[in-house]
């Protein structure tokens, strides 16, 4: 098991090194600090949500509504700001929307017992719908300078508030997942929910907490997006769930739950960011970039499967 994980991490490392080297050689501007910062900045909201999505997937669930929640939170902020609500209060309310939205998902999944796929698919449509109700077909802009600065200006050196938040959350998420009982329970529930129940773990509460956290962090990421772009529209963060889920699965987490680590998720983040950055600098259009990400998603699930298949055939041959 450990060997297999190591080999997947090795593969990720090799892939990352290849893409990085290719970018560095073919693009003179790639290795500059502004480009590296820019590379993180452009996807910072997505990679923040990746951290909670890892918990969701290790827990053997899925949350398709994260992109819509980001959009809802950003649009709610825009709308509240337009109504003259104090921006600080508005931020608080948006985070509350994230908690409530996550709680709706969690309650339907854990208590009503519906598959998270359907619940969060409905939420994907519903949250996006609410975002559109709030801003309709307008764009809202002219936020206070300090708010825009949170997303755009370096706080420590060239590091923005969003980037610092990401690295802080990365450490927090790593500690929770690797060093706490909650993290261990996440794995146990993900690999076998019945066993977890018998071991006395409150699986319903656990799942609810994870969905609430996902809603909260997605709402936070949506606010960061609003701050970075300095404007919101109804389609903010549309389709972000594809990139987010791809990164988590590329990081070696099993879609069936129970496995995955934040270290290889971190590697997967670097791969996707470098790939997108390289493609953008080579003038590859957004739709094609999305196609490449889609391809990567299939490959990241297919490649370990092939490896497993080879082992099984080898084993059966050995037995003959």
């Amino acid at each position, binding site marked *: 098991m450990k060997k297999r994980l190591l080999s997947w991490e090795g593969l990720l490392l090799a892939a990352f090194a290849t893409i990085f080297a290719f970018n560095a050689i073919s693009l003179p501007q790639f290795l500059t600090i502004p480009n590296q910062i820019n590379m993180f900045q452009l996807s910072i909201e997505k990679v923040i949500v990746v951290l909670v999505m890892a918990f969701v997937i290790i827990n053997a669930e899925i949350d398709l509504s994260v992109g819509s929640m980001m959009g809802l939170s950003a649009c709610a902020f825009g709308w509240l700001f337009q109504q003259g609500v104090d921006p600080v209060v508005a931020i608080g309310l948006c985070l509350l929307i994230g908690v409530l939205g996550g709680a709706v998902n969690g309650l339907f999944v854990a208590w009503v017992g519906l598959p998270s796929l359907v619940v969060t698919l*409905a939420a994907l449509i*519903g949250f996006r719908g609410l975002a559109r109700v709030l801003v309709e077909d307008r764009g809202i802009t002219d936020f206070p300078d300090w708010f825009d600065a949170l997303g755009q200006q370096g706080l420590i050196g060239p590091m923005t508030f969003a980037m610092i938040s990401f690295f802080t959350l990365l450490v927090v998420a790593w500690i929770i997942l690797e060093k706490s009982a909650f993290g261990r329970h996440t794995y146990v529930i993900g690999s076998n929910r019945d066993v977890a129940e018998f071991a006395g773990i409150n699986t319903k509460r656990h799942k609810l907490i994870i969905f609430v956290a996902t809603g909260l962090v997605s709402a936070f990421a949506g606010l960061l997006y609003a701050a970075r772009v300095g404007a919101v529209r109804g389609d903010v963060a549309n389709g972000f769930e594809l990139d987010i889920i791809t990164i988590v699965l590329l990081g070696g987490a099993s879609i069936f739950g129970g496995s995955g680590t934040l270290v290889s998720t971190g590697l997967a983040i670097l791969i996707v960011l470098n790939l997108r950055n390289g493609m953008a600098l080579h003038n590859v259009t957004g739709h094609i970039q999305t196609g490449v990400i889609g391809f990567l998603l299939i490959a990241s*699930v297919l490649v370990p499967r092939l490896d497993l298949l080879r082992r099984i055939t080898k084993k059966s041959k050995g037995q003959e």
Partner: protein
Amino acid sequence: MKKGILTFSPQVLRILALVVVTALIVLFFASQIENYLNGRLFNRISSSVAVMALIATGQTLIILTRNIDLSVGSIVGFTAFATGSVIANNPDLSPVLLVGYAAILGGTFGVVNGLLVAYARIPSIIVTLATMALFRSALVEYSNAKSVTSQNLPAWLVDFPNQVVFSLGEFQFRAGFMAAILVVLTAHIALTRLRPARQFYAVGSNPEAATMAGIDSRRVILIAFILSGVMAGLAGFMFVARFGNITVVAGLGFELKSIAAAVVGGVSINGGSGTVIGALLGTVLVDLIDNSLVRWPVVSEFWREAVLGAMILIAVAADTIFIRRLAKMRAARAHEAAIAAEGAKT
């Protein structure tokens, strides 16, 4: 009363419930919107159902086998564009060949999905989330930043969906709608009467049992994806005929609408249960609410998506709770019958 409910099968109950809900919604909006119940409402909904019912039928087949197809919207977009540009370049092409081209093209996309799901054993949600993006970018590449416009299309194609087959007073039954209904009815008869088609239900309700009964579940899942692709291809044909102007965003979001139509129509997301007639009624219901909200002055039309999301959640939750109750009631009745039989013996 309790025993009365049990005499109907869950499928029949679902369809009855849908008809009642649809009727209530029509009555509600009729009381709210002036001049609501007229021929135009029927014509508008039937034209849009003509496209969506095909996709929802394909999606139903997929969901029956415990899978999901998020790529149908992209398949509709690609086939609509490809069909449009083929006929624009070869205006003399026979209609049958054109429909065949759309169906085969859609089916080819379905093969890709089906092989990855059934034979590479990747969960369908992952495969189709990825192919949704892949097929869409294939369309962007193929279209080369051009779009199909209705001026380039032959008249027979543009006129086809609006040709009136027959009309009852104000209600016009148009060719596009009738063709879609014909496909849905064929699918329904096949699924209820033909042995091979029953395999979709078998694989979805209990894969292990299906395998033990000698059903090749991989092949069944592959076929479900191919048929879903074919349906999306046919829908692409209907789409280009109906709208004429096709850009790279054609069919965007159709996957969500088709899933909504299927689950609102009582197709169980856990597989193995549901009917295409239900999905058709679900399509009508979703479209009815869509069309009515636009005309309802009380709320803005931007509520449509939010309402759709809530509808899916309510439909699935209500169905799950209802089916659980029903199973309990059946178990209780079986228990009573067993006790009665025991009593009769002694």
